[in-house]
């Protein structure tokens, strides 16, 4: 499969289909052999390109507690840019811009992420990769554990970010809303790839891969 710049792709499939694995391969987190299998912006994901690839692919993990490990929110968002060599006013500006993009108010900068709400943690986790000027946003189950209002806010946020997005999720309604295209994975293989509305509406296909047609599509029939 390949993804052109600017497209939003939903990665769907049953548990263990390889969605998270695919996301981790996008930036060489799971080893990086000859790098010929995965290419990002034409670059093979192999050791010489690893730093560039990791800057351009922003991986947002399923559990924000894994991604936010610094004593303050500010330091968490600054971690990536610091590793890229930014410092001083430019660093502060990057962090502030990223936090503003995910609508996190300035008061939270000095707080410990652990004590914020799940929705805030998820948005800060997204800010940590926006601060690195990521061009591809690779999100693992971004709406998991959010309350309906938090989920709605996140969907609006994702829809408004002008990046290439790869979203691994079981939230098929969200995939339908945010992604024009979905890729169905099962047992490590692409089982279907096409416009979200068509793939998600295919009842037999959905059932075969332990998924279901979203309620909104069933009602619209």
């Amino acid at each position, binding site marked *: 499969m390949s993804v052109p710049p600017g497209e939003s792709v939903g990665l769907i499939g049953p548990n263990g289909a390889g969605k998270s694995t695919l996301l981790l391969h996008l930036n060489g987190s799971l080893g990086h052999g000859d790098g010929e299998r995965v290419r990002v912006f034409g670059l093979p994901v192999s050791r010489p390109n690893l730093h560039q690839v990791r800057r351009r692919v922003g991986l947002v993990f399923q*559990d924000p507690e*894994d991604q936010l*490990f610094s004593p303050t929110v500010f330091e968490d968002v600054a971690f990536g840019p610091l590793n890229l060599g930014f410092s001083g006013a430019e660093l502060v500006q990057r962090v502030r811009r990223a936090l503003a993009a995910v609508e996190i108010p300035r008061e939270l900068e*000095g707080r410990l992420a*652990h*004590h914020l709400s799940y929705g805030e943690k998820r948005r800060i986790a997204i800010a940590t990769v926006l601060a*690195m000027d990521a061009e591809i946003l690779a999100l693992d189950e971004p709406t998991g554990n959010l309350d309906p209002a938090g989920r709605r806010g996140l969907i609006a946020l994702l829809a408004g970010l002008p990046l290439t997005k790869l979203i691994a999720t079981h939230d098929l309604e969200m995939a339908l809303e945010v992604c024009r295209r979905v890729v169905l994975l099962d047992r490590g293989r692409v089982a279907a790839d096409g416009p979200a509305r068509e793939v998600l509406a295919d009842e037999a296909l959905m059932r075969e891969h332990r998924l279901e047609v979203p309620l909104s599509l069933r009602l619209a029939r």
Partner: protein
Amino acid sequence: MEHSYLDELARRSSPLHRVEARLKAAGALGMIVAAMLLPPERTWPFAAYLAVLGGLLLLARLPLLPVLRRLAGLAPFVLTAAVLLPFTRPGDGTVSASLQLGGWELRLYRAGLLAAKAVLLKSLISGGSAVLLVCTTPFSGLLRGLERLHFPRLLLTIISFLYRYLFLLQGEFLRLARAARSRNWDAGPLRARLAAAGGIVGSLFLRTYDRGERVYTAMLARGYDGRSRTLSDPAVTRGAAAGLGVFLALVLGVLAAALLAAPGATP
């Protein structure tokens, strides 16, 4: 216990809170080392140090009770030592007082009493300095200050991860324990209870290990290459640096006066 509790006092505002963490850490370290070197025979240098700490406490505008409560954490260790020392350290054998209990004689030795006094006052001063430092400096600032003082990076990284994940671990443990209790853990036979407790500890270890791996992956994903880079910190103001100078001069002055005075003379 929550982070908000840990950092609650440190997030207040006062002239002392505003002083850069490095200066406060250096000051507290100086005070602790000087207190350790004070000769226990004299009392006035200890009184002088306590007065300085009291003054700083006023300057920090901290409420007394929570500060004392933190200091009380030291009490079990200090008091045990202070109560046992007079009986167990004979020194030159001079007995200050003795007590007949049946066939037993309890002897209070002079050297032991002196050691007890030293333990009490020295731990009060060093504990007080540490508590004052922690109560006026948020944890993240303290870590950065220590880093600027060239503390070993690896150690600081470990401490900061501990601070970050301690409560998550505690929460995970509480959830596991709650799940065990909700299936009547406490009604089972002892063997089963111990086995379950072992299982909880084991799965906690596995979860910690897993999380460690995931956090490391998340760090790599954002360009971590084994070197820690940190934010530049707020500059040291001239006034604060001068304040530290005066403080250290006072501490060292008292120390010098106490060491130079004839050790045999009574204070």
